[in-house]
């Protein structure tokens, strides 16, 4: 697999949210506005790429028997770093994302990439894999949070794009809207990929 394919893989064929459906908790909760979705996506890219680099670099040093706890420590360390940095420099976003920043550590996509990719491949490939998967996550977050913000608030990044007369669909930003819209989004993705194959 060449490097471009590794990158593209994470965005399309193995998109963490839309295809693999892992790490759903944060996806459903914080996508009430596009800004939150982008913020969370970038935080995940940072943790995923960072932990992929370190785990790939240490892949010969970490014995097989303790690899899972070792991976968890590395991932938790990167998560805490992002937590501290966001707390210091993007305070509003930090408050909006709340408990879901420390919860990046149990986002299955990160441990899954450490186990399935970074612990078996070179550092450069692991960076590309981390970026690809991370961008795939970000794209899905942007789609879902964008849809929810437009429907639920009539705005994009706080700017009004639907006329004042538009009655916001409150359900879109409430919990049920998250489930239903993500379900429909996955349905659309399934439909498109089936049509492409056919």
């Amino acid at each position: 697999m060449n490097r471009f394919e590794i990158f593209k893989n994470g965005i399309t064929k193995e998109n963490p949210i839309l295809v693999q459906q892992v790490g759903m908790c944060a996806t459903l909760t914080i996508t009430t506005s596009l800004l939150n979705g982008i913020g969370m996506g970038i935080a995940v890219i940072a943790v995923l790429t960072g932990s992929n680099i370190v785990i790939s670099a240490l892949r010969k040093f970490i014995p097989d028997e303790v690899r899972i706890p070792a991976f968890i420590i590395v991932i938790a360390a990167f998560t805490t770093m992002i937590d501290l940095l966001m707390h210091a420099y993007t305070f509003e976003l930090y408050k909006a994302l709340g408990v879901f920043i420390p919860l990046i550590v149990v986002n299955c996509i990160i441990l899954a990439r450490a186990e399935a990719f970074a612990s078996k491949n070179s550092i450069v490939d692991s960076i590309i894999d981390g970026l690809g998967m991370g961008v795939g996550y970000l794209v899905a977050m942007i789609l879902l949070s964008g849809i929810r913000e437009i429907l639920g608030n009539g705005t994009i990044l706080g700017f009004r794009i639907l006329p004042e007369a538009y009655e916001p669909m409150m359900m879109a930003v409430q919990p049920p809207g998250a489930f239903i819209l993500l379900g429909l989004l996955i349905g659309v993705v399934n439909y498109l990929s089936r049509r492409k194959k056919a």
Partner: protein
Amino acid sequence: MKNNFIKLAGVLLIIGAVASGVLAWLNDATKERIAMNEAMASMDPAILEAVMPGSVMFNEHEDTDLIEKIKSENEKFINLFTAVDASGNELGKVVRTWSTVKGFNGDMELYVGFTPDGQISGATVISHQETEGLGSRVTLPDFTNQFIGRDGTAVIGESDYDAIAGATMSSKSFLSGINNAIAVYAEYVK
């Protein structure tokens, strides 16, 4: 087997130690900014504006000995702050205090701001137990605005202000808080 166990534990220990070291360093580097963010967030912009127009933050007064001294001599006094604007310039002092006369249901807690030339810049109630809709009107600008611009060094008499009709006790309690702040300001700060 035993050697292997030591190796495994050793590897985990090294990774854990390095991770903690990095985090300790980063925690140290971001500590100040985080504390500042938290302090700013705990301050409601509406309260800041009402007490000291233009301020973005109340910093605790640098002279902690003075604060301890006031606390020991004035039991209703809570704290003394320096109000600053967005670029960090001092706008005046703010006294946080309990009222000295009980309202309808007990003491109320106030912020009272003073400009550098000794005038009251504003006052607001942070907590109270007055009757909602009646005594609670002491929190409204209609009532509190009458104290803006008053001399911050002379106690305000009961005939010098307009109490809220039907909420005299709450009004008196508020006035006692203002007067305690004035007493603190005149004696220790001015």
